[in-house]
């Protein structure tokens, strides 16, 4: 009698749990869809500017989908509000990073050609010198001419990448030309501007 009562109680409890879980499924599905939409709309633009944050959010979404597949609706319900908030914050983070990168690019676009002009001017003068300073050798002057050609080409490619929206490539190339220009200036005995050292 007692055993039968226990079995019945367990069955009732299991039924209640199943019912509770089933009642969470609908809201969990709705919340997951809403969170996924929020993530999808945010990542398209943000991926260009804050790729690490985008990956973290996508990983979180994947985790919630896994939880849903396993029937852990409570985890889905508690996780989706956080994910939606992060997706909204992603837009602001991307906008801030975009503004920072745009400013950095505009500064370099205005400043870098002046650096190249200064190097060209020095190379042109040193090419006319009958004797070079002790700190500069002939090979450095000759190498500077081909070095400047390479810098012009890479800088031109960097600008094309920026215009096409490939920021990672544009900034990688920009870093390369900064390094190369700094090396040339040092070899020519010139003072390197602060912007080339960062």
């Amino acid at each position, binding site marked *: 009698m007692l055993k039968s009562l226990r079995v019945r109680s367990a069955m009732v409890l299991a039924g209640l749990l199943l019912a509770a879980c089933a009642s969470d499924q609908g809201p969990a599905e709705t919340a997951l869809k809403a969170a996924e939409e929020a993530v999808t709309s945010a990542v398209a633009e943000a991926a260009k500017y804050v790729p690490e944050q985008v990956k973290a959010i996508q990983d979180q979404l994947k985790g919630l989908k896994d939880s849903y597949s396993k029937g852990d609706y409570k985890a889905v319900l508690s996780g989706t509000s956080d994910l939606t908030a992060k997706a909204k914050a992603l837009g602001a983070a991307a906008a801030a990073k975009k503004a920072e990168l745009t400013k950095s690019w505009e500064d370099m676009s205005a400043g870098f050609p002046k650096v190249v002009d200064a190097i060209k001017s020095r190379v042109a003068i040193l090419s006319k010198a009958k004797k070079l*300073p002790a700190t500069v050798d002939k090979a450095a002057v000759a190498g500077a001419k081909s070095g400047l050609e390479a810098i012009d080409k890479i800088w031109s490619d960097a600008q094309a990448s920026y215009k096409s929206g490939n920021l990672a490539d544009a900034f990688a190339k920009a870093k390369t030309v900064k390094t190369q220009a700094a090396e040339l200036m040092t070899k020519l005995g010139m003072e390197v501007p602060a912007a080339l050292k960062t």
Partner: protein
Amino acid sequence: MAEEKKDAWDATQWHEVKKGETLWKIAEQYYGDGQLYGKIFEANRDTLKDPNLIRIGQKLRIP
């Protein structure tokens, strides 16, 4: 000698004139050839009227 720069991209090269220096000597220092002093004179025509008249402490652009 470096002039204090506000623009991090400013690549202007500067030299502060010291006692006993001439444009010829400065050209020798930077170009290895004193005969190229005219390049420095031309780059500083806004402040130099005569290549033989430079002042101690004067800051000159070195192109």
